[in-house]
Each structure stands twice: as C-alpha cells, then as structure tokens.
C-alpha cells in the first residue's frame, strides 16, 4: 500500500461506504492484512467489503479511531483513565439491538480490546441481577424442572431463582 494513503474506504455488508484512517484500521488484524494486500490508491477502484452491517461498523470505526492514538504511540495514565471513561459511555447501548453485533464484529475483526470491552459490558449488565432478570434481558427460556430448581437451590442456598 502506498504510504501516502491516510484513510481507506471499506464497504459494509449492506453496501454502504465508510472511511477509516490507516492508523485506526491497524487495530484489526484482518484490516491490517487488507492494508498490505489490497490496492487503496486513487487509481484503484477495488473497495473491500467488511462483513459487518452499517450500524455496527459505524460503532467499530468510532472505537478504532478513538483507540488508535493510544495503541500506536502509547499514552499517559491520565489518557488511559480518560479512555476508560469514554469506553463506558461508548458501550451504553441496548443489548439486543447492538451489543451482540459489536461482539461478533470484534470477534470477526480480531479486535481483542473491543471483544473484552463487550464482554465486560455484558457482565456489568448482569451485576446483582436475579435469575429472572437475566433471563428477561437475554431472552433465555427456563428449561429446569421445579425439582431440578429445588436441587440447585439446596446446593447453593445463597442464590435465589426469583
């Protein structure tokens, strides 16, 4: 790839075009490989497709652009703290609507940091919840019989099934 290219264009799975800076794209291994293999200069018309829908890709690119400076050059503790706060705001989203999409995209794009963040967000959502609340939020059907539930209750008396 020509070193003069600062941003590249990629297509989402719905066919929309998105721009991402080269430094941000380097956060993803597949995108990084793409940077080496695909021609991104002005005289090439090949636009690679990322198998992530537009709504998710917007968020993924936003994450990459924010994290790229720290990943590429390192940062002070105060920057890291600020980035942590930004991550919390960034992940305030509806589970069903987009969290799973972000998770799958992070997995597909080999983005360990985003994958871990999605995991932590899902874990934070569950903090202190009852079994019924978790079932509701993740649409899980209870397939335990009442006898099995009773047995589990006896095994770990500290936890409720409510």
């Amino acid at each position, binding site marked *: 790839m020509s070193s003069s290219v600062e941003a590249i264009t990629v297509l989402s799975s719905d066919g929309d075009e998105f721009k991402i800076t080269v430094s941000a794209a380097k956060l993803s291994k597949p995108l990084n490989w793409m940077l080496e293999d695909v021609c991104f200069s002005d005289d090439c018309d090949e636009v690679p497709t990322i198998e992530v829908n537009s709504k998710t890709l917007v968020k993924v690119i936003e994450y990459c652009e924010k994290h790229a400076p720290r990943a590429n050059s390192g940062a002070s503790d105060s920057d890291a703290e600020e980035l942590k706060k930004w991550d919390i705001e960034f992940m305030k989203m509806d589970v069903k609507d987009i969290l*799973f999409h972000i998770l799958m995209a992070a997995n597909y794009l080999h983005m360990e940091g985003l994958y871990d963040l999605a995991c932590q967000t899902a874990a934070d959502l569950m903090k202190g919840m009852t079994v019924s609340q978790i079932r509701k939020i993740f649409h899980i059907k209870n397939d*335990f019989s009442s006898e099995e539930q009773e047995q589990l209750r006896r095994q770990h008396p500290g936890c409720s099934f409510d």
Partner: protein
Amino acid sequence: MGAAISLQFILATGIWIFPVEVAWMEALKQEELRIDKRSFDLIPKDIFDVPIDFLELLFDHLSFTDQLQFARCCKYLYSLAIRRPYPKARETPWLIGLTEDPPSCERIYNQVTCYQIGAKSFEHSHLHIIGSFKGWLCVHYGYNLTQLINILSNVHYDLPPLSTVKNFVPSEIKHIRAFGASFCRFMRPNMIAIVSGLGNLGLFKIGGSKWKCHIRKEKYVNLTFYKVKMYAVRKEFNQVDIFEIDDNLELSLVGAIDCSEVIRNSLPPPFQAYLVVDSKDNLFLVLQHRKMFGSVLMAIEFEIFKTRDGKHLVKVDTLDDQIVLLSDTCSEIIDFKDCLPSTFFEGNQICFTTGEFDHDFGIYSCNDETIRWLMPFREMYCLHWMFPRFASQCTCESHPAC
C-alpha cells in the same frame, strides 16, 4: 477374490461418498445464498448463538454470586459453568482466619467486616489451615484427618493424615513450612507437596492412598509446581532445585537455579523466599525481608526476581500489574484485572501474612515500596490470603468422583 474385494470396496466407497457429496453441494448452495444476501447472518439472535468462548469469558468476568445466577438461567448455561476449563471469577482477595470459640472460618474485608464461612467442615475443633491455593484450602483436623476443600464448589478430597507420613518425626508435621499443589485444567488438584518443619519433602497424588516422603541431604523452605516439575528452594536460599516426579512419586533432580549471587547482593537475613508462578507462565522468587521488633518478627521489605531461560534470576521492580498473595506456607499470584474494583487492592501489590503469631499482616506496594499494615485480628489464627475460585467438573483419572 481380488475382484470381489474391489467391488465391495467400490460399493462401500460409493455408499459413503454419495451423501457426503450431496451435503457438500447443499452447503455450497447455502454459502452462495449467504454471500448473495450480504446479510452477515452470523449475528446472534440470542445469547446461545454467540461463540462458546465468549460465554466462558463472560463467566470469568462475573463475581461468583453473579456466575451462579447466570448458570441457573437454563441447563445449557449451567452445564457450561460447571464444565468450563480454567474457571475464574472476578472477586476480591480474601483474608481468611479461624476462630476457636465457636470453631469457624471467616473472611475479612476492608479491615472491619467479617463474614463467617458456613461450611460444615469448619465446625470441628482443633482446626488448622496448612495452606490455600487457587481457591482450595488444605485443612488439618487434629492429627486424624487432612482435607482439601473448595468452599465455593462445595467439594473436598480426603488426604491421609500427615501423621501417617513415614519417616517424618511428629514434631515436623506440627508446623508445615510450605504447601504447593498442581492442578488439572478444571482447577482440581492432582498432586500435593509439602515441606515439613525440618525441611523434608512429602508428596501425595490425589486418588492415591499414602504420602511419599523424601528425606534428602538438602533441606528446603518453599516449593511450587511449574511446567510439570517441582521447584524447591533450599534452606540456605542459595539454590532452587528442579525435580521431575514419576508415577510412583519418586523424585529425580533434573536441574537447578543458582540464587547465590542474588542472596549475596540482598539484604542480610532473616528473610523468607517464596516461589510463585503467574498466569503467563513466569516463575518469580519473592524475598520477604524481616526484622525483630521486640519479640515479633515483622516484614520490612520485599524483593522480586523473575527467572530468565529457566536458569537465571533477574531483579524486577514490578509484578506486571499482578498481586502476590503470600502466607508462610503458601503463595500464589493473581491478575489484578481478575479482581473486582476496590480501593483496597491494586496491581503490583504483595498481600502477606508473617510469622507464627498470626497478627502481622499487611499489603506491600511495589509502586511506592511502602507497607500498609492491617488492623490485627487477635481472636483469629491461621490467617491466610486466598483468591476464591470455583472448581469445574473433571473426568480425568485423578478425579473419578467429580
């Protein structure tokens, strides 16, 4: 005969090829449809569609009470929770201690709050905690029974009483110097090793019937299991001996780490040396320097050494954002990112207990090289730091009863 065999072979081959080919063509058609739709159809519709490693990671990010709630949502999650390898929980390190009246085991938080651990095992009198490791406690009841207990998973293994270790004199099992255990990937113990009060080595294989004792010319003060071998620190602190252990618990000395230079350049005795292995497979040697204050021996400083090439020790200033839990008999290292957010704990700390009187315990910060002494709990004894962990179900030959 040859033709008959060939025909049978062709018929058999044909029978097998046909359905495979059809299935393959069908898969190809589906893949084409998927690409045509450009529909990123890997997006999960519910939590069961997400990769299994994500669900395992999700469990690891939860505290153990949240893990239990999540596991009880449905059979699939329950089965995943109790069978996943390397189970972890996001928790706070516990400082646990025993009380005599009534006999109980308690964990202590933030210097002031005590929670009684309601396991039946602790209702015996004459209890003694030999060591704690990876969520397991090695508990000694009088001289008749020794058990390994995982409080959270409610499981235990009976060990032969230490009094049955052949060739150990009674006095040397009163105060065990060090305790170590090796684990399978489901965090069930495979093997236990102890250093007796006189510096001799004792080994027990889970599923076995008796302890194997090794009385060598060299005496030891600490040990750990590392890369399928046992590492033991000599009493003189000048060398760490590396042993291979065979199926009959016989030891073969296969190498050594020379510590003489480290000790020569270190502060003068008294000190204690501990071996700890982190999750990234690094072996550390931690030196705890001590000083007599009146009649009490207290920790004053710590030095950390990391092994390079399995032979050399290099002094380091940091624990790579990890926390070492040190007790006289046992030590382990945990990742700070596995801990629940707390104002009490941070990375690069050594949480320690020192001495026989059980009232010297504190937290050493490698960042500013200071010790924060914790309020003494004089009514408690056998104080140990531990990091609570579940043990998963395991079907290996050492753990048939799981």
